[in-house]
Structures are given as structure tokens and as C-alpha cells.
């Protein structure tokens, strides 16, 4: 996926914008994480959830109100 291929741009740019330092090992781990997660994140972002009425302050100990 295109987004995953751009890890070498996304990660250094993101780190620089936040002022987070990273060495080569950090970058290697982050690139691996990006390859693993980014395609799925893009899929998640593309899900149409506009019809889902938000559950306000969900009580996770109970079933959601129907």
C-alpha cells in the first residue's frame, strides 16, 4: 500500500515535527511497526462509520443501551 511505502518520509517528518529524537535502531523498529499497522489503519480510516450513533460515556461493564 502506498502509505506503507512512504514510511521513510512519514516517520522522520513526524518525529521532526514533534522534536522526538531517534537513532537507527529506533527508526528500524518504527519502520517495521509502520509496515505492520499502517495498511490496517488506512482501512480503518476508510470504514464508513457515519451511521453509527456514538455511545456517550459508555459503561464498559454493561451491555450498551439498545
Amino acid at each position, binding site marked *: 500500500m502506498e502509505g506503507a511505502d512512504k514510511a521513510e518520509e*512519514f516517520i522522520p517528518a513526524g518525529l521532526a515535527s514533534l522534536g522526538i529524537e531517534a537513532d537507527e535502531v*529506533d527508526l528500524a523498529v518504527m519502520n517495521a511497526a509502520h509496515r505492520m*499497522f499502517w495498511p490496517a489503519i488506512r*482501512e480503518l480510516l476508510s470504514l464508513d462509520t457515519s451511521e453509527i450513533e456514538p*455511545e456517550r460515556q459508555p459503561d464498559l461493564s*454493561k451491555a*450498551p443501551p*439498545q
Partner: protein
Amino acid sequence: MSALDLPLREQAAAVARGDVDPAELLDEALARIERRNPAINAVVETFPERSREMLAAAPDGPLRGVPLVIKDEWPLPWRAQRFGAAELLAPTTPGESGPYRALRNAGATIVGVANMHELGAGSTGNVSYYGPARNPWNTERCPGGSSSGPAAAVAARLVAGAVGADGLGSVRFPAAYCGLTGLKPTFGRSAMAGHHMADVTTLIVSGPLCADAADCRLLGSVLFGEELSAGEAAGLRIGVVRDTVSEDVAPEVREACEAAVEALRAEIGGEILDVSLADLEAATLAAILLVNGESLGGVTPERLNRMSPEVSPIARGFIKYRMLLPAAATVQASRVRTLMRRRLAVLFAEVDALAWPTVPAVAPPLTEPLVELPSGTHTADQANVRGAALANLTGIPSISVPVGLSSDELPIALQLSAAWGRDELLLDAAEALERANGRRWVESLPPLAQAEPEAAEA
């Protein structure tokens, strides 16, 4: 046989009857930790004087005089948790955590702190500040994580019960790999106070790891602060989701779990129903995003730049990567949570429990935690989380129950999940499953727990 080899409930009963001296039981536990622990690195710290003080002050509770271990995720009055890491990004101090109070008030003796996967961020237990914990069934294999030490300690019968924590499967994975029963309670039912994320987490719970369901019921009752009464799981409607989590599993795991589901059905006169639950992959990612986001509270770029060089490279890189995840994905994850909670509420009107393998393959090697599945080779973390995360995302309870041994003598486990608040039903079902297979798997002992002749225990 040492009293330490008795189930948790029988140790408690023997102490209550006066048949076992709890001071001797504590000494036996400490001695056994000294002998057996070097092979598995399950217990990272003991504190005999503190344990003896706990015992001396123990009230007449349901666990009076019984030694237990607690995961390095909970503070004790004399020790802050390290979370299996050289450095925790959240401030920690010694204190009375909820699980500590629950154990103390039940009369239990905390005999040690148990190892865990670094920062709770792994299903294998092969990475820790203290060095990896090892699986008593095969010390070259992963014990599971992140509650690696609690599981290894109970499997090796250092103690009969341990308190773990489960944010994405961290009680159930090690229970599965080590052949134990592990309960992930309904969110909010078990003691959480004092956890460094207690005020922000919507996924993590404390939970018991024991040899069988009856012991989990006892320790769970203590952690819940209410009795988890026993009942019958008669007529249980068992839903099997025909999806990746039940289909993309190692053949012998699949076979053992299918046999277990059928045995459970036959034992209780229940029925098996094929059910569908769409978007499980999205649910898994949603849980990962939410728990990762919640763990970043108070973390700043400056703080990350000062991180201890002793934090593992993997953890360091992942934490920094988390900082780059888009907020929109977390918002979307919350939507998916709502969606899955509503779908499960509908589904639990049709079935009482969902069943699928806790983990898709047996414990992988410590040095290379990869698993072979029909779809190919995966990291154990990737493969494991997809069967576990739904319970944390939605808040429902789940239990991992041992249901077999693989051809290379490693435990296989089935996971059962139920609707919110039906933790007791899961324990009932787990006990029914134990009856169905003649308690064969809950009474199987790993080589390490069989290693010592009785004379050596004296």
C-alpha cells in the same frame, strides 16, 4: 506430596482446618521458588520478612495463609511496580493497590512479584527488564505475556494462584501457553485501584491465573470483592465464529478446540451454533489503538528523548511510533468499539458463549516467537491479539481453559467469552469442560513441576 501441590482452594481449606501450618507453607513456597525459579525466571523478587508480616497480620479470610504471587504491574506498600521495564514513562510509587488490598483482606500472603513482558507490550513474555520468563512445559518456549511470570509460577507450582492483568489478552495468552485457567473479567468488576493507568484505561483489568476454574473462582471472588457463585452451564448455547480467529489456526489446535467445544456441548446438553461477527480485524486494531493511546498519557517528546537506554529497542521504537498515530484513527476506533458492543449485545441474545482458540498455535520458541498458521508465518503477537482484543475492546469477560497438549507436549487452550457480567457463567462452563475431559488437562503437570522427588521438598 507438599501442600503447595494442592489446589488453591484446598490449601486455604487445609490452613483453615489447622491441617497445614501457614508459616511452614510460606517457607515451603520460598524454598521452592529458590529451587525451581532459576529455570523459569517467573518470580523477580521475594521479600520474606514482608511476607511473614502479612501472614502474622492475616485476617481470617478465604485465602488465609495461602501464598500467592502478583504481577510486576501492581504497586505494593513496600515496592513500586516496574512494569517489566527499566523505566516506566508514568510515575510510580509504592502503595496499596486494589489487588494488594483484596489479597491482604482475604488473608493471603504475597510471596513474590512475578515477571512480565516489558511494559505489558507483548503476548510472549520473552522481553523483560528482568530477562525473559520461561515456560515450565519447555523452558526454551515462551510462557506467554504479558503476565508471563504469574503463569510460569503457577504452572511450575511455585504457588497455586497469581494475579495478572489483561489489556489485550495478557492473562489469557500466558494461561494458554502454560496450561492454566485464566480469567479476563468483565471490565470494572475486578480490583484496579493503584494501577498506574487505573484512571485512564478502558481496557485493562486484573485477573486470576490458577490451575483450574474452581481456583479462579476463589481468587476471582477475592479480586471482585464479591462471591462468584457456582452454577450449572446447562443448555449453554455455544457460538462458534467462523472467521480468522477460529479458522486460521494450527491444525492440532483447531482439532483440540473443536473436540473441546463438542465435549462441552455433550456435557451440558447444550448446542453449538455457527455465528458471524463481522469486522473482527477492525475491532482488533481498534483495541490496539485505544490501549496504546491511553498508555501515552503524560508522555512528552522531551520525556521520550530522556528514555533510559536500558528500555529495549523494540519498546523504544514502538513508543515513539505511537506518538505519530493519527487522532482520527483513535476516534474511528471508538466508533468501532460502539459498533462491536452493539453487535455483541445482539449476538448474546442468540448465544450464551462464544468459543474459539485462545491462541492459534502453541508456545513459540523464546528466541524467535513466530507461529506457523495455514495463512503463513506470523509473529506470535500478530496472531494472538486477533482472538483476544475483542473482549478488551467491548468489556466482555473471557476465560482461557486448557483443552489438550500438542504433539510436542505444549498446552492448547480454548477461549470462552460471554456477555457483560456473566463471568460466573464462564467459570461454570470451564468447570463443565473440565468434567467433560475428566480433568485431564487441568491436572497435567509440566516437567518442571514433576522434577523433584518428595524427599527433596522436606
